[in-house]
């Protein structure tokens, strides 16, 4: 095994890791805010991928250009999910909260199958294509762009949360809803905003993936599963945790596939997850 191959694998893993990180960040944001897990997170991603696909098919809009549209659509869907479903189950028992978003996931997946068939779709010739060679290492341009886009979106999210007035209000609501409301913050609006932003995050990741990934109703399953593991491993509600854990999972997945067997890559990822939460149940950067 040459150094090139190992280096190549590490970089591929990193690139995938940043995508996992953004998907997980959206999930983590919602959980951190209201302690509700969005089990339809993967389906939101699937919907954004289909949105990009149809925008391409009907209007010839390249996925790279449809990012803002898809992000806005999913922001709207997130807000609608809050007002339509989540708001009514905020104080309900945990089983109700789980089945509500789980039910939404099954509904959306089935709806996609019904409307758009279970066929695998691709975007035939996206703007970003081909690969480049850097010092003997080959990198797919779509992968590179997708990853860079996710890093950019993540940085934007981080700055928004930590530097803006609204970001501070979101954090305050996550830390103490009652105290926040006594400051004049409307928790309900913050929750809706959190759902909007969290859904927009996964939308951006989804659209960026469409330039090299298949689009089908079940596409969100594995990404969502990895996102849950990422969030739990990084620490619930922690954005930095989502970033570190996402990259870690991307790396372990790629290197595990190379060193052991691609068929076992998820076994290795999930074993690492179990190991980490066994030693540190609140995750790497978790507070709870």
């Amino acid at each position, binding site marked *: 095994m040459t150094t090139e191959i190992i280096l190549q694998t590490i970089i591929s893993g990193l690139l995938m890791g940043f995508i996992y990180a953004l998907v997980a960040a959206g999930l983590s944001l919602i959980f951190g805010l209201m302690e509700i897990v969005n089990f339809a997170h993967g389906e939101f991603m699937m919907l954004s991928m289909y949105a990009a696909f149809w925008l391409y098919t009907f209007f010839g809009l390249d996925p790279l250009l449809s990012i803002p549209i898809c992000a806005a659509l999913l922001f709207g869907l997130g807000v609608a999910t809050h007002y339509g479903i989540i708001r009514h189950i905020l104080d309900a028992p945990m089983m109700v909260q789980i089945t509500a978003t789980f039910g939404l996931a099954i509904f959306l997946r089935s709806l996609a199958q019904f409307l758009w068939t279970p066929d695998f779709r691709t975007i035939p010739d996206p703007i970003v294509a081909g690969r480049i060679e850097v010092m003997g290492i080959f990198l797919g341009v779509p992968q590179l762009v997708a990853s860079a886009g996710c890093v950019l979106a993540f940085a934007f999210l981080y700055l928004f949360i930590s530097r803006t*007035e609204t970001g*501070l*209000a979101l*954090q*305050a609501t996550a*830390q*103490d809803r*009652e*105290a*926040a*409301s*006594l*400051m*004049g*913050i*409307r928790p309900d609006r913050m929750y809706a905003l959190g759902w909007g932003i969290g859904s927009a995050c996964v939308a951006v990741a989804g659209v960026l993936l469409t330039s090299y990934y298949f689009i089908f109703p079940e596409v969100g399953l594995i990404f969502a599963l990895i996102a849950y593991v990422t969030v739990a491993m990084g620490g619930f509600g922690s954005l930095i945790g989502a970033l570190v854990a996402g990259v870690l999972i991307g790396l372990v997945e790629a290197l595990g596939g190379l060193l052991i067997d691609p068929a076992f890559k998820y076994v290795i990822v999930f074993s690492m997850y179990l190991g980490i939460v066994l030693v540190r149940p609140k995750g790497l950067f978790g*507070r709870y």
Partner: protein
Amino acid sequence: MLDVAGLEVAYGDYQVIWDVSLHVAAGEIVSVLGPNGAGKSTVLNTISGLCRPKAGRITFKGERIDGLPPYEIVGRRLAHIMERRRVFPYLTVRQNLWLGGYNPSARKERAQTLDFVFELFPRLEERESQLAHSLSGGEQQMLALGRGLMARPELLLVDEPLLGLAPAVAADMMRILRQINETGVSILFIEQNVQTALSIADRGYVLEGGHLVLDGTAEELLASADVKRIFLGG
């Protein structure tokens, strides 16, 4: 300034406050006294909008505020500092204070108010970039008070400001409350220790089992045999 009349509060079917009436005039310091579980916090929580009353009227500066959500009540210049301080643990001191001035009516003068708060609590300025959970109990109470003041209140509700403080720090806190009052802020606060509370309060109300059992000026209450019975069981 604040007028509470015939207040009744229930958590579900479980009523905790019966027919409580009290008032705070502009410039006053008033104390709500009573043993554990008397319903003192519930009364404050209902005034600030965290709990909804089952019956009764709450008027602030001549307008009804009962049933309004807390984020609207704070905009009318009524700030509430909850029991156990409830600072945002993972935000810095400065961020906590800044959020205290979040409501639109306080936002314009935020920077000046922050200067005023730092003047009142120099310790907070020294620690402005520290996370709130790393502060000592006394400092957290200062932060909670400062955050409340950032809303530029005309009336400040304070729930057990001395809870868990060392005696020396507690004496300091009483002095600070009086100092805040001297800047023109009326104060309604909860305290379990009658002597301490009445050392700065103009008047007091005594709650027991959700009922108002006694009220009067500080002198009257200190001399009252009923107060001794309620608090000392004598």
